[in-house]
């Protein structure tokens, strides 16, 4: 599978409280959560994000609360993939479990700039910054996790 989209770039330690503030956790409806995604650190995000766009960030993306509402909000906002230097562990699990594609790539997290056009080939793990022409290779998932992804999420893999 290949995707291409415009980049929304954030820094290190983007926590799940800013991805979706707790004041909105009285619902789990994806579209309601998406309406407030990132608003405490980027109030323009909801207005400017287009379906297929890509989120790029620094280290420890998704730290803090275990709320699965965070990857749900990002996915429902139309983001097709999150690329970060690395992820906090609970967010990493949650994203895989709900089917939000994520890639760990320190070099891409450093070099890709806000507004760049980026293409991702999930089969090869190659990330291409179309704007600059640079390419990066993401860390491959271990086979155990690939199996969860291929079966369509954790619960599907239990059947």
């Amino acid at each position: 599978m290949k995707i291409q989209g415009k980049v929304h770039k954030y820094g290190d330690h983007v926590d799940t409280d800013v991805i979706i503030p707790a004041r909105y956790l009285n619902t789990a409806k994806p579209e309601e959560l998406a309406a407030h995604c990132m608003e405490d650190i980027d109030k323009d995000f909801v207005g400017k994000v287009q379906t297929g766009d890509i989120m790029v960030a620094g280290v420890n993306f998704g730290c803090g609360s275990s709320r699965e509402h965070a990857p749900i909000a990002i996915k429902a906002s139309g983001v097709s993939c999150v690329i970060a230097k690395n992820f906090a562990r609970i967010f990493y699990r949650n994203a895989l479990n709900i089917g939000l594609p994520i890639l760990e790539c320190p070099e891409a997290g450093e070099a890709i700039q806000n507004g760049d056009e980026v293409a991702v080939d999930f089969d090869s793990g190659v990330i291409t910054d179309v704007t600059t022409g640079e390419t990066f290779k993401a860390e491959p998932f271990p086979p155990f996790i690939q199996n969860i992804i291929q079966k369509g999420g954790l619960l599907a893999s239990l059947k």
Partner: protein
Amino acid sequence: MAMTMTQKILAAHAGLDSVSAGQLIEVNLDLVMGNDVTSPVAIHEMESKGFENVFDNNRIALVMDHFTPNKDIKSAENCKQVRTFAKEYGIKNFFDVGKMGIEHALLPEKGLVISGDTVIGADSHTCTYGALGAFSTGVGSTDMAAGMISGKAWFKVPSALKIVITGNFQKYVSGKDVILHLIGKIGVDGARYRSLEFTGDGIRNLSMDDRFCIANMAIECGAKNGIFPVDEKTLAYMAGRTDRKPVIFEADADAEYDEVIEINLDELKPTVSFPHLPENTHTVDEIDEIPIDQVVIGSCTNGRIEDMRAAASVLKGRTVADGVRCIVIPATQTVYMQCIEEGLTKIFVEAGAIVSTPTCGPCLGGHMGILAAGERAVSTTNRNFVGRMGHPTSEVYLASPFVAAASAVTGKISCPCELD
């Protein structure tokens, strides 16, 4: 192959003789926990995917603590959904208003977690139970659903940081200062994916409430879990709370650690984390005057009886400063009752504080103490991220109950020693 304490617990629950860091394993769970924010998502996942059974209705705990007593209609609907599920599936450990407390104070108090257990909870502070010598960690709602269905979870076996604790506390220093100091030292991702294994002869000077507080915030440096060895204090705490027999695991003497960090309790001072990351630590004696609007004393981090006693010892015979709202939240019904019986509630109310029934409320900006734009709080909670307690321009300073109570009296961030 030598193992850490965490690795030994995981190996035992995976039915393996040994495990090593990085290995992917499937473990049997002793308990699966969720709250009123995370359980509805798990229940929806489970039911929408066609699962109709839980692995064991005795080993699931559902605690209605975040937006309760319900703050609005949507929250009430969420609790209603969980209540219906609990009834339908015969979930024994369903804790509703009147019985509930803040989950991570409640479960140990009820004897639902004991030494040697493996526990997942759909709440990041599930790592709290490491204080009892259990492996416990936070997960999301789908992992919770899978745990409720199968009684199992997959993990990557973590490596560990060894935290060697020596010495004893000076006056007005407590468990909160230990963990804030550690997070300040290694950063909010300093233990990402790894265990914090606490050891050293200073541990005997840490009360169980200190240990719960320290293990609770392991997640704030990214750790998978934080764990303490089991000693007489642990066994005394569990006595009478459960019929199950604790299983004591110890790290091998030659277990490998990524890093060894020493903390001498004698050298610690009252510590505060500045906005907007828990790693932004300063000792109270080195900071300039920082006026405040609100104080919160409570949460899964610091809502236990010793925390209440610490706060009351500072507030006794004193009054909350003009212009400061002081909100005290005992974490469970038992702690709430103890506060009444020990006269702490009277001290709080006479000082001009309010005392709430248990709720996570203000810690995550839910209800019961939301901050307006630009307002500043000193809080015994665990996170000071942007917008955590309310408006995105508000600020949270994390501190111990001693410092929070002293700050309520002076109206600025203070050590109780300034009042002596």
